[in-house]
């Protein structure tokens, strides 16, 4: 239980930059999730914290101590591996006791602590088994108990749920979260599963291409995405490309003029959450109201997606809750789409800027 501070942490593998200047503060007892597409450097970052990968630059501070140069066995970091990495030749109890033995915990103290850890993960009674005699879910919990029993300064989880089936994953992620709260243990988890990240994290770190794109709560990322990547990666967004022609005025590639809040003149992108858009009579009186044609209607159960073409180049998706009294438009209908200027987030269009 301690603070974890990463300062401009980088890792280069030859010419590939796996992690670039990542800085991050994880508070005492906080649960931070590193989220990003495959190959964005999440695992490498986690492994630098654990000490398995030597950073090319930057520092790792754990519990106030600079551990950058320390080998893994001198850091007090508990790790749960994607493959669980249980010792196949040791029983469950021996697996969990391993870290305590390494720490020279008095023999008399080991057994009760092992039993306590196994009880925490609800594995009491299976202590005599060998790992291969356990189900995947049970192995995962042994791995968790083994990492927790040493009372680490930080708990590191690398896609701990990816080898479990969908049903089990849902219960285990809640269990891990509860355990983490109960023990008040500083935790960093890596995942590329957005739902998992949103459910478990206190704070999320969105990474792409080795760099941190945004750090924030679920709400921060959703309401105020820092850039186009985050807007597209966390939740869904309608992205309209074009340019800001004057403060508060945006012109789409399809020639539509839209009122927006803020944005510097130049090539830009507007991000709109599908559920923040209104259609039909509900669009009346909003800052933006565009006539359009319904192209696709997707019935998703809890909600309905309506794809509406508003110009030759622009199409938006409107998501409306599926209410008993709701009117569902049909394909080919003429319909208005509207939204408040404040519902849109405007970013400078990096892609257009570099290609121009």
């Amino acid at each position: 239980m301690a603070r974890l501070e990463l300062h401009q942490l980088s890792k280069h593998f030859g010419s590939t930059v796996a992690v670039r200047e990542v800085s991050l503060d994880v508070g005492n007892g906080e649960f931070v999730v590193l989220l990003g597409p495959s190959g964005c450097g999440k695992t490498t970052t986690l492994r630098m914290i654990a000490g398995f990968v030597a950073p090319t630059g930057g520092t790792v501070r754990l519990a106030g101590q600079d551990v950058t140069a320390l080998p893994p066995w001198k850091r007090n970091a508990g790790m749960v591996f994607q493959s669980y990495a249980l010792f196949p030749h040791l029983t469950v109890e021996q697996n969990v006791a391993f870290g305590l033995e390494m720490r020279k915990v008095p023999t008399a103290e080991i057994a009760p602590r092992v039993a306590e850890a196994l009880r925490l993960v609800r594995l009491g009674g299976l202590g005599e088994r060998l790992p291969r005699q356990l189900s995947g879910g049970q192995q995962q919990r042994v791995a968790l108990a083994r990492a927790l029993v040493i009372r680490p300064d930080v708990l590191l989880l690398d896609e701990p749920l990816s080898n479990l089936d969908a049903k089990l994953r849902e219960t285990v992620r809640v269990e891990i979260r509860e355990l983490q709260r109960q023990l008040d243990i500083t935790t960093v988890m890596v995942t590329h599963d957005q739902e998992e990240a949103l459910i478990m994290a206190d704070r999320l770190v969105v990474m792409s291409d080795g760099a941190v794109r945004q750090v924030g709560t679920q709400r921060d990322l959703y309401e105020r995405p820092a850039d186009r990547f985050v807007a597209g990666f966390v939740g869904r967004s309608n992205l309209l490309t074009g340019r800001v022609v004057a403060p508060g005025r945006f012109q789409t590639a399809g020639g539509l003029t839209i009122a927006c809040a803020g944005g510097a003149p130049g090539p830009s992108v507007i991000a709109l959450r599908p559920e923040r858009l209104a259609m039909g009579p509900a669009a009346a009186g909003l800052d933006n109201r565009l006539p359009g044609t319904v192209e696709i209607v997707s019935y998703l159960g809890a909600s309905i997606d309506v794809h509406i073409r508003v110009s030759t180049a622009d199409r938006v998706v409107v998501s409306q809750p599926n209410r008993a009294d709701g009117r569902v438009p049909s394909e080919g209908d003429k319909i208005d789409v509207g939204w408040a200027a404040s519902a849109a987030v405007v970013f400078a269009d990096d892609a257009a800027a570099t290609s121009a």
Partner: protein
Amino acid sequence: MSASATAESLTSLAARESRGGRRSAAAALVGPATIFVTIGLLLPIIILFRYSLNKFVPGRFMVDALTVENYILFFTDPYFLAAFYRTLRVAAVVTVICIVLAFPLAYKLARMESRYKNLLIMLVVLPLFVGNAVRAAGWMTLFGNKGFLNVTLEWLGLISEPIRIMYTEWAVIIGITAVNLPYVVLTLQSVIEGIDRAVEEAAYSLGANPWTMARRVLWPLALPGFAAGAIFCFILTMNAYATPVLLGGPQFVMMGPLVYVQFAVKNNWPFGAAVSFVLMSATLILTAAANIMVQRRYRG
């Protein structure tokens, strides 16, 4: 090792097949191997054993008999006994050296992620492309009194007299070690590759330093592989022929050359057969003992 593993998988395959009522297919699969083992291995051994109980009468070659006097001769004659102990000693020393030298190399190879990995494995195997005799000849030019090593040391002023390496036990040990090393490296490498790397990292993250990790995690998991490598190396050394002859010289007699001399030079087939049998039995007994020990360790 791999032959017995194949045999085992074949028998288990046979068992499964026969349960499914497809005996003929299984027999067709197991048949060739069984015939080969019977004719190629078992039969010569039986014949050899029979020969070893015969009498040798100079001038009359081999005379039918049922006597153990060849064995009594072997175990009472200091010359033969010395050859026997020498062979055991060399085999033990070579095995220990091979395992110690092979492990770091095998470990590096197994854990390597570079694209040069296959190239390095080829380099390890490369010496096997050169026959034992040719390699021993190479060692002779290196070890001889006027060999490269002595000339260099003298030139450097480190020695005034050439060091005698040729025709010593150490020359033979070095020579056989060089021959066996690739086999041991490859055996250990494949075993270590089968151990999940994350298991080592888990040990580190739990506070084990590399030495403790090796002792508590790597060693117990790799033990069957170490046993396989060691047994392999031991058997190869017990039966070595070219290297002891060329590097050990005429005074340095090991069991392999001894068998050859009895059969081909002295024409004493019964005694040659007895020596072969002693060699084979000793190898088998020690191998089996090592196997049992490892199995015990593994269960307990």
